[in-house]
């Protein structure tokens, strides 16, 4: 497995990541002492779900695999569960584009809103 394991219970895929993946069901109060500095899980994080390794302000990018997987939709505290309630995709948002008429590039050649 690529990445670094924390206490045999979570996996950090790359050094610049701001989240770790739970390798078991984690509970509030669980400690990950391999994290630097050691981290306390603040809420239940199911197997496969993500834990914040750093505090993230709303709008800040969330990183996994060393890449951007989205941005914080609200501020996220270290140790919290990171999922759809506090992390948004920055892609495939046709709803926003259609209502705001915002295009990232190109104008009509790029296929304007209908």
């Amino acid at each position: 497995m690529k990445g670094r394991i924390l206490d045999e219970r979570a996996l950090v895929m790359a050094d610049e990541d701001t989240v770790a993946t739970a390798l078991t069901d984690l509970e509030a109060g669980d400690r990950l002492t391999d994290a630097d500095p050691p981290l306390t899980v603040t809420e239940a994080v199911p197997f496969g779900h993500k834990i914040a390794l750093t505090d993230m302000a709303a709008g800040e990018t969330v990183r996994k695999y060393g890449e951007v997987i989205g941005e914080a939709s609200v501020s996220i505290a270290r140790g919290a569960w990171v999922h759809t309630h506090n992390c948004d995709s920055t892609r495939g948002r046709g709803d926003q584009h259609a209502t705001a008429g915002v295009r990232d590039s190109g104008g009509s050649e790029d296929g304007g809103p209908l």
Partner: protein
Amino acid sequence: MDTFEGYRRPDGRIGVRNHVAVLPTSVAASPIADRIASDAGRWARATPHQMGTSQPDEGRERTRTVLAGIGLNPNVGAALVVELGTEDLDAESLADDIAASGKPVETLAVREAGATAAALERGAELVADLSEEISDQTREAADVSELVFAVECGGSDATSGIAANPAVGAAADRLVDAGGTVCISETPEFIGAEHIAAERCVDEATREKLLDRVARRERLADLMGVDMRGAQPTPGNQEGGLTTIEEKSLGALAKCGTRPIRHVVDYGEEIPVGGGVTVMDTPGYDVESVVGKVAGGAQVVAFTTGRGSTTGNPIAPVIKVTGNPRTAERLASNMDVDASTVIDGEALTEAGERVYRTLRSVANGAETAAETRRLEEFAINERQPRELAAEGER
């Protein structure tokens, strides 16, 4: 040199199965085709689908491309094309396209046969004759460089990107290094990872084509004014820990390994054989995506699943690989490779070696779990009016 034993076809390609394919040209002929194949035996495989007798030109072309591609797939030794008799898609010319490969091909029109009972009877005779014609085919040694290995994922969760996809990716690298071909598809699942795939393209034209196809899929969401988050990741993906399409894509890309991307092809288009990775532009829907690659010539498919998909294909064996320990246990009888061991510390190279060994043994004739259980889903991706309109605007 890595070899396997397969069936050499008159056009030089090599199959890993010796099926008689029963190909209906429309939904109206599908139940008959299905019955003919199931009455005949395991060697006969039908491809029932939902396409109507009358389709717009672009839709009909796609149906034809896919059915011709299935007939030309080297796992097919002979084919019977079945029509009701009212289809726009001409059964005779479809049969000619397949017969150009030198394979025996027959056609059956339900109306001409008289009625369904007579058509079933005539169909039984035809497939029996076709089977007889290819019964003298025996397996011969072939180099793995002649293999086209399709990679697919479905029911993904967080373990897919950590264990199953990288394990299949390691096997994909081994095959490409031996001169073989790997084909990845599901274009929406490049969104957020396309910069990494683009860097792997061998030249500018391939890179541009790849980025264009990914942008087109993303634009479809824009055109429809929808928020893709409801569908990508799917609710099941989300329950499995995947939060965004970017996260899903970054994990999904791992299943095609790390070697250069040489070609980008359209849905169902022939996959160039030899030494590299090809991207096929398909939707994210698993069954249609697998069918596109099999129509493109893939002889074997690896299908990774975290949450537990059981899907197969009538023409190509589908190897199921899971990285989720719970799925490995609960759905053990539907899985071929347990890669969840990676989470317990097994090296990815070792898990990849197990996938590669399974690929070779399946190519040699070993049945996959989906084959044993006759799980043979088939669906053709229909070109949607909005999709066509989007292309027209370009």
